[in-house]
């Protein structure tokens, strides 16, 4: 196209008229002057917690914070690990997160497919009702949920964490929108080819939904991994605590071991970071996907 406009016999060659969008001298965009400071501001809490995790207890107490410690005390990590049952915490967090991820993938996708494709009486009303519950804050349903979990005999157990979070409305909504955007002819072709409803779902719909399923898995993993309020309500014993609740044990009534707490916090974020880095390509792709339905 550029050559088309450049070489036109009816007009003299005018190089000045061709706009060159790149600034000549900077290897980066001027936007970076704005974005880099912004990124630093966003990163500040993270940087601060990593620094604190390497300070002595007295440095960590100080305010304004000591941002350049005298020495780096990596031993804080060992001390933190040894002072609380971190093995249990990690195990519980993994159990909680993986079980809720599995539950959401299974139940949400089935429910979402039904809402997207099956015609049944009251399906729209039911879906709207589900969406409405998204607007109800967790605090409102906290007590009823607690009562149900107590009836199930799951108070102070990892099971009590998992069961109420096996299927979320957000997941149903996300997947339904995606399923609806898949061309229906693919499913019709498969049905003519001899697949059952379930066969169509398993062999056509799910494989094509890998990006959105990955998204749901990450979001749910993150959510469960970072959940604090619900474990706080139902878990009392340290050996059933997930990480976020366990970490709060560093916060005593009178003193808080900030350096150890931050060491534990940094450790607790490593799996999250790993999961996100591993799957971010899919994640971003499908968040963008849900916006542009054909």
């Amino acid at each position, binding site marked *: 196209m550029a050559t088309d406009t450049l070489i036109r016999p009816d007009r003299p060659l005018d190089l000045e008229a061709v706009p060159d969008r790149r600034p000549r001298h900077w290897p980066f965009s001027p936007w970076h002057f704005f974005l880099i400071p912004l990124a630093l501001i966003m990163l500040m809490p993270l940087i601060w917690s990593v620094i604190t995790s390497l300070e002595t207890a007295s440095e960590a107490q100080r305010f304004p914070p000591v941002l350049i410690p005298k020495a780096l005390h990596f031993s804080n990590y060992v001390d933190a690990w040894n002072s609380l049952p971190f093995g249990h915490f990690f195990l519980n967090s993994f159990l909680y997160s993986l079980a809720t991820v599995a539950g959401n993938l299974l139940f949400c996708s089935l429910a979402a497919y039904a809402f997207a494709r099956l015609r049944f009486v009251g399906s729209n009303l039911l879906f709207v009702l589900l969406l409405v519950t998204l607007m109800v804050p967790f605090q409102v349903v906290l007590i009823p949920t607690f009562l149900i979990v107590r009836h199930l005999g799951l108070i102070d157990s990892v099971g009590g964490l998992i069961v109420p979070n096996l299927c979320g409305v957000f997941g149903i909504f996300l997947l339904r929108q995606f399923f609806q955007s898949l061309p229906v*002819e693919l499913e*019709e*072709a*498969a049905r*003519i*080819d*001899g697949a*059952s409803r379930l066969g169509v779902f398993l062999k056509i719909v799910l*494989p*094509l939904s890998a990006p959105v399923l990955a998204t749901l898995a990450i979001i749910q993993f993150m959510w469960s991994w970072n959940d604090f309020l619900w474990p706080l309500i139902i878990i009392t014993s340290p050996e059933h605590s997930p990480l976020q609740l366990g970490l709060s044990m560093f916060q005593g009534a009178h003193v808080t071991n900030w350096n150890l707490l931050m060491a534990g916090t940094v450790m607790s974020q490593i799996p999250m970071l790993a999961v996100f880095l591993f799957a971010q390509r899919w994640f971003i792709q499908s968040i963008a996907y849900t916006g542009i339905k054909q």
Partner: protein
Amino acid sequence: MADVSFRDVTKEFPGATVAVDRLTLDIPDGEFMILVGPSGCGKTTALRLVAGLETATSGSIEIAGKNVTHLSPRDRDIAMVFQNYALYPHMTVYKNLAFGLRQRKTAKAEVDRRVTEVSAMLGLDELLARRPAQLSGGQRQRVAMGRALVREPKAFLLDEPLSNLDAKLRVQMRAELKRLHQQLNVTTIYVTHDQIEAMTLGDRLAVMSAGKLQQVGTPQDVYERPTNVFVAHFIGSPPMNLLQATVAEGRAQAGDLSVELPQVPEGPCIIGIRPDSLSLREPDDSRSALDFDIEVVEPLGGELLAHGSVNGHLASPDTREETPVLAADSESRAEITAKLDGRLRLKAGERVRLAVHPGEVYAFDAATGDALR
């Protein structure tokens, strides 16, 4: 292989859209049946009813003498080729072809044998490891055909399978489809709104309009003896010229054209003249003539199309929309098209005298649109 029958089938969609209206049609074993009609006339719906993707509101559908009206698609043993092909994007060509067989628990060796056979037949051998996204439009079309062929179904349903191809490929695939059908002889229902496909491919045509079956017959039959003014106008390209006329004493008068139509009852009627029935020959005793003002000339090589006007009133192929006007009113002009010898040198603005043989003039009832002879 089997025959397919519609028995008084009606399909009504919510919102009182009657997509298929009391359709009765028998398609014998091995026939290539073409469904044609204008957009929205219910062709796709009729096909989907056979496939089991829609359920008839009333009436019944039979395949091989068995009532399948309430069977699910998988139990009907038919194959369908969709307009956009609907290839499974996450599977290779091989898996696309094999999917239907695997669903039916065919033994692996047999699957392999049939996929190989069909891919050889369609020239897909080289492409078996590719995904649909890595194929050209024509190759996708072949895979879609292949997916239908491997199943060896009772009937093929094809919904405008060539409409996404470019003109050259379409001609090539059309010939290939015809060859395949001659070779396999499987009952086929083929939806199109392409005139040439309809005329060349089908053993018989079924012309539909607004959900209703208008006429069934061989292409020649439908072209030469349309049962009503709609079919007459729809089949044939360019379409038949339709003029309002009045019949008195065995002659029809339309503008300055006067044709002898002895069997037609007195009163208003519609006369139809195909563009290729018009010629520049000198009018004689056997021919009638009319003055024609040429407006546009389209040379097509061996032939040319002349668009222009004559005295008279156009008649609409949809008789319901029409308000009858006095055909004798000589003020009004009607736009018609003539297909003439391509060697003629005609210019826009010229006035010529066109002749037509009365035997090639169609007549239709002005109120119902039914053919009058």
